[in-house]
């Protein structure tokens, strides 16, 4: 029941920021309309064009936003047999979160450790993790990350961030196209404007539009990023409630914030979808109004100071102890008296493979998914052959033995432990 209160409160708070962004878009449309169209209804026309742009983009992202995001990041869908542990961990969280169906699972072939969730509702959700994340984390840590992503799904964050992202995108497109058109029309307008009666007013409007075209994207970004940061904290709180093991998420965040690898195929608008800011690794710990994520160190500190239990109240207490204010949660969550005891770690189920071996096995896994073929040479080397290899004879790069590429098998011997 508390989950619903939380979602509702979230929606109310987000609504304000949402309206503010919408206001930015309409105001921008109005001023550009007045500046461009010399008719008295120019402003209204501009507003309608802006709203139409937003509407069309929203429709597109509502119905195919998830597949666009997944294909943009180069994610491959996997099943239980490809990576049993990942599948199991997602299923555990599905049971804990009481989701009606199993989310689709994707792996992104990238060494940068990261993860994101998408899908407009829990029935159509998908969770994507990178190969780097899988090779770096142990079971408990992976569970923490998946729980965080699952929380984005059940808190309806994906839907909100998609619409807010589209709103931001529309504003950026409008102001950019306004700027472009200024370059082209600046020279021609000089001749035409002398023949107009209302050239004075038009010029004033033009200045206003220029100022607004600068301001609107900045304002909208501020709103968007503050929306995103709040939701990250809440997703952490829900994740702890699901796993009952704050240390898992804390140590996962610690591990994945360290490496300095930037995730390819991520940009500023999709950044808020990921568990950790995929862009500038150096600025991950800086507090600033233009970041999509709260500083990692603070998130870890909050998680580590949860000693007594795993409900929302305990997270809020830890939050206010670290941050100095308790405005994160609605009052109903603070009255959360449900006892959610912490659980011990499942360290006994640890994979004895080293992180390097795990990374190598995952590399093979991704090649299987990308239709590579494999030949095991007598010298012990496993030769990986891409699909478009078309020479008659293949020489082993280590021992110079010759192999027939037609004898290659679709899976190396090492992968698939059962």
């Amino acid at each position, binding site marked *: 029941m508390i989950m619903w209160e939380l979602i509702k409160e979230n929606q109310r708070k987000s609504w304000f920021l949402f309206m503010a962004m919408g206001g930015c878009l309409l105001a921008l449309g109005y001023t550009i309309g007045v500046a461009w169209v010399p008719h008295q209804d120019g402003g209204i026309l501009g507003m309608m064009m802006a709203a139409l742009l937003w509407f069309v983009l929203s429709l597109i992202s509502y119905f195919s936003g998830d597949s666009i995001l997944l294909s943009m990041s180069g994610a491959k869908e996997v099943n239980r047999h490809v990576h049993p542990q990942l599948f199991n961990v997602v*299923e*555990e969280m599905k049971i804990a979160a009481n989701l009606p169906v199993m989310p689709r699972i994707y792996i992104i072939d990238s060494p940068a450790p990261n993860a994101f969730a998408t899908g407009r509702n829990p029935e159509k959700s998908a969770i994507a993790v990178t190969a780097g994340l899988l090779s770096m984390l142990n079971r408990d840590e992976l569970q923490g990350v998946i729980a965080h992503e699952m929380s984005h799904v059940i808190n309806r964050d994906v839907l909100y961030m998609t619409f807010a992202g589209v709103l931001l995108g529309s504003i950026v497109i409008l102001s950019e196209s306004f700027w472009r058109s200024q370059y082209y029309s600046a020279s021609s307008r000089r001749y035409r404007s002398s023949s107009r009666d209302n050239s004075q007013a038009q010029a004033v409007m033009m200045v206003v539009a220029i100022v607004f075209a600068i301001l609107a994207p900045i304002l909208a970004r501020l709103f968007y990023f503050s929306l995103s940061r709040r939701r990250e904290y809440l997703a952490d709180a829900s994740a702890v409630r699901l796993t009952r093991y704050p240390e898992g998420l804390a140590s996962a965040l610690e591990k994945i914030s360290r490496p300095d690898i930037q995730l390819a195929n991520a940009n500023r608008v999709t950044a808020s979808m990921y568990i950790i800011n995929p862009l500038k690794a150096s600025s991950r710990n800086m507090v600033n109004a233009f970041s999509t994520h709260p500083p990692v160190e603070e998130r870890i500190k909050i998680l580590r100071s949860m000693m007594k239990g795993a409900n929302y109240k305990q997270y809020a207490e830890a939050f206010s102890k670290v941050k100095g204010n308790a405005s994160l949660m609605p009052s109903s969550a603070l009255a959360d008296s449900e006892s959610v005891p912490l659980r011990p770690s499942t360290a006994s*189920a640890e994979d004895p493979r080293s992180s390097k071996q795990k990374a190598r096995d995952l590399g093979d896994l991704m090649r299987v998914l990308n239709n590579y073929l494999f030949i095991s040479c007598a010298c012990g080397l496993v030769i990986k052959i891409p699909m478009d290899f078309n020479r008659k004879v293949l020489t082993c790069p280590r021992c110079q033995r010759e192999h027939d590429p037609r004898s290659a098998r679709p899976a190396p011997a090492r992968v698939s432990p059962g």
Partner: protein
Amino acid sequence: MMLALLIFLGGLLMVVFYVINTYNALVGLRNQVKNAWSQIDVQLKRRHDLIPNLIETAKGYMKHERDTLEAIVNARSQAMSSQSIGDKAKAEGLLSDAVSKFFVAVENYPDLKANQNFLALQEELTSTENKIAFARQAYNDQALFFNNKIEMFPSNIVAGILNFTKQEFFEIQEAERAAPKVQF
């Protein structure tokens, strides 16, 4: 006279509507409890299916752990034969204990720990244990909600007349867990 009759009929109609409404709500809740229970049941069955494979794989390596292996087999057959939810909870709790003791013992057998087949089984069992724990939480939440509805006024009157009974919680009592025996 006429007015009194109308008021009486109106009141009767309201009571009938209330009873129908409450009945439907209770049936809906009871089905949710049943659904939550079947979630646990699926995972318990899965664990029962996994254990023979586990024993088969471990037998060759763990010749000195006869007691540990037998404890699992016994706990499994006990759990499979128990009927009521309370008995089941107790037996499955014992099985969980036996399995976790087994995994502690495995630490002394590096060869077994390197076995691919065993690793896959261990992942499946660990995951199943987790799923049981999460499903248990969900079931108990639902059962509590249903039981509250049955006990609270005025829905308790309807529940009493129409014979709704309280659902048992699936609880593993910490106190009943036997402390590990150390033998010299």
